[in-house]
């Protein structure tokens, strides 16, 4: 165990090219999927919180269900869609980073959307008419409400980030864990553990934790800064 840990630290501090390459791909896939989830999830979550339409309860229930989607089932669905005989088989996305991003967007978007929805819905309902009565347009009032809900929305982004970077089942299915192409930290950890390379698996695990810690710290700093009265 100690030897494995020592070797793991050596791999990290020597910037082992194989390890760096996997870490960078993990980051690239995670940031891409998170960006898309945020762009889709925050506006839809706000709309669900502020909008009045029939079937809202059903849509809300579906979003909450989506927050608990089993990743491996999502992976299976994306696999079938992009497989050679699937409806988007012609795109040739199966076993590429693009398919991994699609799967992770499906997993993370309901999380970002659901947390945004509950954060915006939790704002004082009197705020919107009061802002409108001060001359805000509907868009300006909505923007102000999003800013008010910023702490909760950042929690949603953190949850989305966590679900993406730690995900293994779906990316294994649709990415195939191909060395140099679709291998990311989580799938590499599974592979190295199975092969008995505990030092490499541990090194990758430490990097995964460090990346997660750094990203979450950055988001917490952002959350704290936006909380300062201006």
């Amino acid at each position, binding site marked *: 165990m100690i030897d494995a840990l020592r070797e793991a630290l050596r791999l990290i501090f020597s910037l082992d090219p194989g390890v760096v390459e996997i870490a960078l791909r993990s980051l690239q896939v995670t940031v891409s999927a998170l960006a898309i989830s945020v762009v889709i999830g925050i506006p839809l979550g706000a709309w669900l919180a502020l909008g009045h339409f029939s079937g809202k309860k059903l849509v809300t229930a579906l979003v909450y269900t989506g927050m608990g989607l089993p990743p491996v089932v999502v992976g299976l669905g994306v696999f079938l869609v992009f497989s050679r005989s699937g409806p988007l088989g012609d795109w040739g996305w199966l076993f590429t980073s693009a398919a991994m991003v699609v799967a992770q967007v499906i997993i993370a978007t309901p999380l970002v959307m659901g947390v945004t929805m509950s954060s915006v819905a939790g704002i004082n309902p009197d*705020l919107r008419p*009061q802002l409108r*009565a*001060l*001359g*805000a*347009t509907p868009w*300006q009032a909505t923007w102000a409400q999003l800013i008010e809900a910023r702490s909760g929305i950042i929690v949603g982004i953190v949850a989305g980030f966590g679900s993406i970077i730690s995900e293994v089942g779906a990316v294994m299915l649709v990415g195939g864990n191909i060395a140099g192409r679709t291998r990311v930290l989580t799938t590499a950890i599974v592979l190295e553990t199975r092969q008995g390379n505990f030092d490499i698996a541990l090194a990758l695990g430490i990097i995964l934790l460090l990346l997660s810690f750094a990203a979450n710290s950055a988001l917490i700093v952002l959350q704290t800064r936006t909380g300062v*009265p*201006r």
Partner: protein
Amino acid sequence: MTAAPFYDLHHVQQSYNRRVVLRIPVLRVEPGEILGIVGPSGAGKSTLLRLLAFLEQPAQGAVTLHLDNQELTAETATIDQRRQIAMVFQRPALLRRSVRANVAYGLRVRGGRDHREQIDAALKQVKLDHLAAADAHTLSGGEAQRVALARALVLRPRVLLLDEPTANLDPYNVRLIESLIQQHLAAGNTTIMLVTHNIFQAQRLATRVALLLDGELVETAPVLGFFQSPADARTAAFVSGELVY
């Protein structure tokens, strides 16, 4: 100087979930006056203000604002015309930002950035200049209501709608807010509607008073006549405190 705006209400009815909450056959709010609107809780006072603010449209009838020789309704008023109206609510909902940012909000949504002098003046007017940088959510009820008034007054609205602006406040804050309302009216070309539970406040501030009971407009009269020789027996009972509700 441009003339103060005025309202005409004709056969206005408002209902929520098929329940009629307000019924006003005719009401005219005169230019440059303070119309006090009194009545018990649930009488429809706040609903009336929301209609006047164009935040809602009536289920039936018409609420028309006459502004600069134009007849405006909630449907036809442009955003710039709506911005001639400001409303202060009974329970102020402030942004989770500084007091200064809250006062600046209405100016910022109108565009432009450099409003420092106007904001400073408004904060000084409500005696909150020393709390300009404070988080608005740390204020007392009276201070929060003064911020709400400042963020409306800084816009120099031609129509000012006040929904119980001094409810549950201490005498110091009540006096301060009442004097600010009077100063704003004295500045000219403004029309003010004041909803209040406090008939003495209506007596002190209003030029005319309207009584709403169970969503119905019972009587509208100049302040002296309303309190000393009401035409309707229900007004007399309300003014004397005999009306149980």
